[in-house]
Every structure is written in structure tokens, then in C-alpha cells.
């Protein structure tokens, strides 16, 4: 068998001349077929990329619009709040000015009084100084009161804001027991007491004797007595 195999391995055949050309054409065709496939994939990839990018841009723009709208809403809200606060501040300033004018007036009056006192009374300068101190203390007290009032106003402002933000929920009405329900309950209780119960708790039906069936003493038909209770005779 080894002899046969060696003969087989040594054997060669001459290939026809056109075989390589045929093979070359086939290889070229395969190369051409592969190229369009790659180009198609490229186009597909580019289209997909474009779609993805446009989608992402649209999403980003949409989000920015939303943000702008929210910012506009916030700005308007803040502007409104500022406007309200300005109005409140103005009113506060007016109040403060009024208070200051009153204070000045009072101080002026006190000073005048002091001057008059100085003029009229024979009190020494120490007394006038004491009066000044007292006036200073009173002015400090009034300042403190004004500051407290401001704080109170600011607190009320915040409370107002909270009230605006809170959603007004409809108040749930409290349920009360109606008179009809109470009466029904009373009737139920009565029925329970009237109906006798057995040891097992089951209602016992009434006997026929106790029922409302008529129990006559005498039965007469065409003047003839058919039944009498006392005699218990029948004709």
C-alpha cells in the first residue's frame, strides 16, 4: 500500500490554461461584491447617526425650552413677590416715617417741656439730663417696638406665601348620627327585647294559640248554633 501511496503523491496533472483566468475573474467579482456591501453599511450607519443626533438635539432643545419656561414662570413669580415686598416695604417705611415724626414731635414736646421746666421751675440741669436719658430710653423702646412690628409683618408675609402655595383642599364634612338612625337603633333594641330567644340564641316562633287567629265562643249559621265554647257540643 505504501508503494501505491508514493505513486499517488508523485502524480501530477497539467491544469488547463484558462483556469487561472477564471479563478481571477471570480476573485475580482467577489472583491467587487464585497465593496458595495461595505458602502451600504456606511450609508446605513450615517443615516442612523443622523437620526440619533437629530433626536438628541430635539430632546436637548425641548428640555431647554422647558427650562426657559420654568425660568420665566419663576421670574414672574419672583417679580410678583418683589412687587408685593416693595409695596409692603413702602407701607412699612410710611409707618416708620409716621412713627419717627411722632417720636420727633414727642421729643420736641419733651424738650419744650424741659425748657419750660427749666425756665419755670428752679430744677437743676441734672434733672434735665435725667429727662433726656428717659427720652432716650423711650426712643430705644419705640425703636425696638418698630423692629418687632417689622418682624411681625415679615412673618405675616411668609405666612401669606405659604398660604398661596398650599393647595386649598375641600374640607371634609364631619358625619353626625342622624335622628332617623337613632330611632332605628331604638326600634331594633325593642324588637330584640320582645322576641324571646332560646338557649341557643335562635328565635322561637309563636304558638298557634297565641296567634291572632280568631277564637269565637259561638258559631251560628242560619240561626242554628253549630259550636259553643262552654258546652263544647256540636249540632
Amino acid at each position, binding site marked *: 500500500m505504501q*508503494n*501505491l*501511496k508514493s505513486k*499517488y503523491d508523485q502524480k501530477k*496533472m497539467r491544469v488547463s490554461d484558462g483556469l487561472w483566468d477564471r479563478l481571477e475573474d471570480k*476573485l475580482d467579482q467577489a472583491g467587487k461584491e464585497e465593496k458595495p456591501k461595505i458602502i451600504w453599511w456606511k450609508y446605513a450607519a450615517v443615516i442612523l447617526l443622523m437620526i440619533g443626533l437629530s433626536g438628541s438635539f430635539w430632546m436637548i432643545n425641548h428640555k431647554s425650552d422647558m427650562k426657559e419656561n420654568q425660568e420665566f414662570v419663576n421670574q414672574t413669580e419672583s417679580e410678583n413677590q418683589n412687587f408685593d415686598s416693595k409695596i409692603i416695604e413702602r407701607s412699612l417705611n410710611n409707618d416708620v416715617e409716621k412713627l419717627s415724626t411722632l417720636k420727633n414731635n414727642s421729643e420736641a414736646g419733651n424738650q419744650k417741656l424741659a425748657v419750660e421746666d427749666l425756665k419755670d421751675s428752679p430744677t437743676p440741669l441734672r434733672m434735665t439730663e435725667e429727662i433726656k436719658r428717659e427720652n432716650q430710653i423711650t426712643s430705644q423702646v419705640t425703636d425696638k417696638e418698630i423692629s418687632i412690628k417689622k418682624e411681625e409683618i415679615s412673618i405675616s408675609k411668609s405666612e401669606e406665601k405659604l398660604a398661596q402655595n398650599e393647595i386649598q383642599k375641600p374640607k371634609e364634612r364631619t358625619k353626625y348620627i342622624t335622628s332617623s338612625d337613632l330611632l332605628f337603633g331604638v326600634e331594633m333594641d325593642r324588637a330584640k327585647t320582645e322576641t324571646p330567644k332560646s338557649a341557643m340564641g335562635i328565635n322561637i316562633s309563636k304558638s298557634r294559640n297565641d296567634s291572632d287567629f280568631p277564637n269565637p265562643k259561638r258559631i251560628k249559621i242560619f240561626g242554628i248554633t253549630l259550636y259553643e265554647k262552654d258546652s263544647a257540643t256540636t249540632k
Partner: protein
Amino acid sequence: MKQDLQQIFSKAKKYDRLAQKSLFELFSGKMLSVANSYINNRDDAEDVLMNAFYKAFTKIDDCRNYESFQFWLRKIVVNDAITFIRTNKHILYAETEFTDSIAEQIDEVDELSKDIDLDVILREMPIGYKLVFNLSVFEERKHQEIAEILNITEGTSKSQLSKAKKWLKDYFNQQNTIQNAESEI
């Protein structure tokens, strides 16, 4: 020679057409004889050879090194030739068990192999026997491998090989008797 083959192989891996042509010129003669040993038709064998080379050049990355290229290409040629026969010629293998009596015949054929003309065997041997004989003797495949390639049982492969050898023995005995008769005349 080896260095040249290595350079050609490395260029062919880069799909260089000249390198591919030189590889074709180097191995086409041998591969055509292999294909023809199965198909027994030159034109069909050339078609199979062309397709085998096309596969080899397009999937050359699967071949690890230049030394194994020849064997790798031969494997492709043999497989393509077998698939060509299976698609164009319907071969039915009768399921037979391999027995000791058949095994005895193999040793007798080995003595005759010196005088056997290879072309005659490849031309005259029935196709069913030839496939198993070629795979077993020339490709040195085991019966298990042959059974997998031809989709038959291992026993059938063994019995087909023994029958092929018996056919060879009978054929050459017949040839000898004819030659003797001719010489007597």
C-alpha cells in the same frame, strides 16, 4: 524554497494577486490529480479545483502558517470533491459488518501493490469503493473519520475498504490471466 513559499504565503494573506497566482501554479497540478482521483472527470475536477482555490484564497486567514497550507488546501480539495460526488452521483452504501474473513484479504493485496497501475485503479474501481479506498490509503484517514465524512458507520467503512481490496485482487488476477492467455497465443 521554504523562504520563497513563506514570502508568497504572507503576500497572499494580504490578498496580493501575484502571490495568489504563484500559489496556484505551485499546487494546482498536484491538487488537480487529487480531485480527479475522486471525480474521474477532468473538467469537473478543474471546476472543483477552482472552487477549492477560491475558498482557500478568500479564507486564507484560517490557515496558520505556510507549512500547513498545502495540507489545508488538499483537505479543502478532497472535501469539495466528495461533496461534488455526493450531490451529482447518488451512492448507496449497504450496511455490512466487518468480519475476520474480510480482514484476511487485505494482506494479500499488499503483495500485489507493486505491480498495480494507479491510473487503472482510479479509472476502473467502483465509486463507492474508491471513496473509502482513497480516504483510507491516500489520505490516511481512520475509519471513524471516513465514517463521519461519508455519513456511514465505521463497520461499513471497514467492509467497503476490504471489498475495494478484494476488487483490486480480482481485477489483477483477471488481468494476469488475460495476459497469460495472450502470451500463450
